[in-house]
């Protein structure tokens, strides 16, 4: 397990991030620092702006204002103004994006092994045996039976597809993972297993992650820090356990008290 608390440089520095949809606010004035090994949760209900924020951070949407500085080879680089080829390359190497619906993040007509190996081949891997071995390794790491490496994701259950998506993203050892409702749409028992896996991988690989979810149980389990969003603004931020156990803002208090306890 890596102890990255000794790093002296933030991995991501976000300032003033703003996105409008006409006169509507998608998100406004969002800023935070993310350090190596930290997991940031972004919670809010529908329409809070959390997905807009995630897409602006990950380079899927162009923000109207603001900076997203990523530590690229020791140099804080603004990914908002980066060239598209550079951003696409970043998306294949240092960054990863786990979609809520696995089908959006996988090639459904390519085998599991091909899906996992694609990123390797995209960065120049040219030895079939090695590629297959890496793919095999990762498939078992995400607890997919090894003999399914040649099956297509169309033959997988929802939970397995999601785990495959994670393997596909992590194979190139990214430093930052964006996740959009990673457990959305999955059965509860499947969710637990997936969260557990994610938590283990994040710890093991020293990943930083930004996770958007409406599910407070997910952030309690996965996130070190938390931002609560409402109507496009961050209304509260802090340590996850502090924000959930001692919420200060009215909306956060409402959110926390609304969660049904089993």
């Amino acid at each position, binding site marked *: *397990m890596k*102890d990255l*608390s000794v790093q002296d440089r933030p991995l991501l520095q976000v300032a003033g991030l703003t996105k409008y949809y006409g006169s509507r606010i998608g998100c406004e004035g969002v800023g935070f620092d993310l*350090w190596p090994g*930290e997991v940031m949760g972004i919670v809010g209900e529908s329409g809070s702006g959390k997905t807009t924020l995630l897409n602006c951070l990950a380079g899927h949407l162009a923000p109207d204002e603001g900076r997203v500085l990523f530590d690229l080879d020791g140099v804080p680089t603004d990914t908002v103004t980066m060239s598209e080829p550079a951003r696409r390359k970043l998306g294949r190497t240092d960054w990863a994006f786990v979609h809520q619906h696995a089908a959006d993040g996988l090639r459904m007509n390519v085998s599991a092994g091909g899906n996992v190996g694609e990123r390797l081949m995209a960065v120049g891997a040219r030895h079939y045996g090695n590629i297959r071995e890496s793919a095999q390794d990762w498939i078992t790491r995400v607890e997919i039976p090894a003999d399914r490496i040649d099956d297509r994701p169309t033959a997988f259950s929802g939970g397995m597809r999601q785990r495959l998506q994670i393997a596909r993203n992590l194979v190139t050892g990214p430093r930052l993972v964006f996740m959009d409702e990673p457990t959305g749409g999955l059965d509860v028992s499947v969710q*637990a*297993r997936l*969260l*557990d896996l994610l*938590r283990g991988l994040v710890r093991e690989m020293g990943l930083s992650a930004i996770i958007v979810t409406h599910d407070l149980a997910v952030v309690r*389990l996965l996130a*070190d*820090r938390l931002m609560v969003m409402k109507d496009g603004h961050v209304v509260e931020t*802090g*340590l996850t*356990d*502090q924000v959930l*156990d*001692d919420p*200060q*803002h*009215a909306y956060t*208090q*409402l959110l926390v*008290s609304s969660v049904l306890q089993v």
Partner: protein
Amino acid sequence: MSGGREQAMIRIDNLSKTFTLHNQGSTVIPVMANAAFSVAPGECVALTGESGAGKSTLMRMIYGNYLAAGGSIRIGDTDIVTATPREILRLRRHTLGYVSQFLRVVPRVPTLDVVAEPLLATGTPAGAARAAAEALLARLNIPERLWSLSPTTFSGGEQQRVNIARGFAYAYPALLLDEPTASLDAQNRETVLRLIEEAKARGAAIVGIFHDEAARSRLCDREVDVTAFRPDRAA
């Protein structure tokens, strides 16, 4: 007051806390004012006071789980009240341990890994971490056949002992203990008391809540009555 406040591991000054319930008519509930005390390395201080007086609240504030309204909470050189989340996380990993009353774990992680985690997080090699975890679990009478199982299905007493094992796996310089001997039989209670004494002996500063009077008098050098910090009684 004991030994020079300059050498204190834990130092609390002028601490206050208020709860504001925005969704219930914006009720403001002041629960603490002018709390102050310190704990030196090797000292054990007990928080006393009747139920609801604020013992757990104070402990959670020291851990950074509750926010303070004012004042300072120093753990070593870091003031929790003004520290960044990142600094608090680092503190919790390396310096400040917390054994709550309830075991909260990730669903499928085996007991051995639960206990070894604080060691792994601070850079202990996997083999040594597991060995230390095994020793602790054995000491606390958790049978070996349970080590590979998740503690979520254990009895209350077993869970509490796993909780304690996790809290004592890594040698934290500062330790917060909330009812560590609750739901334990005589033999395990004795083991836990010994663990706490060993922690004291290696210089840990300990704040504890003990309903068990005998434990309190055996372990604690001082008592701090939190009722003195109630706002309606603050001087």
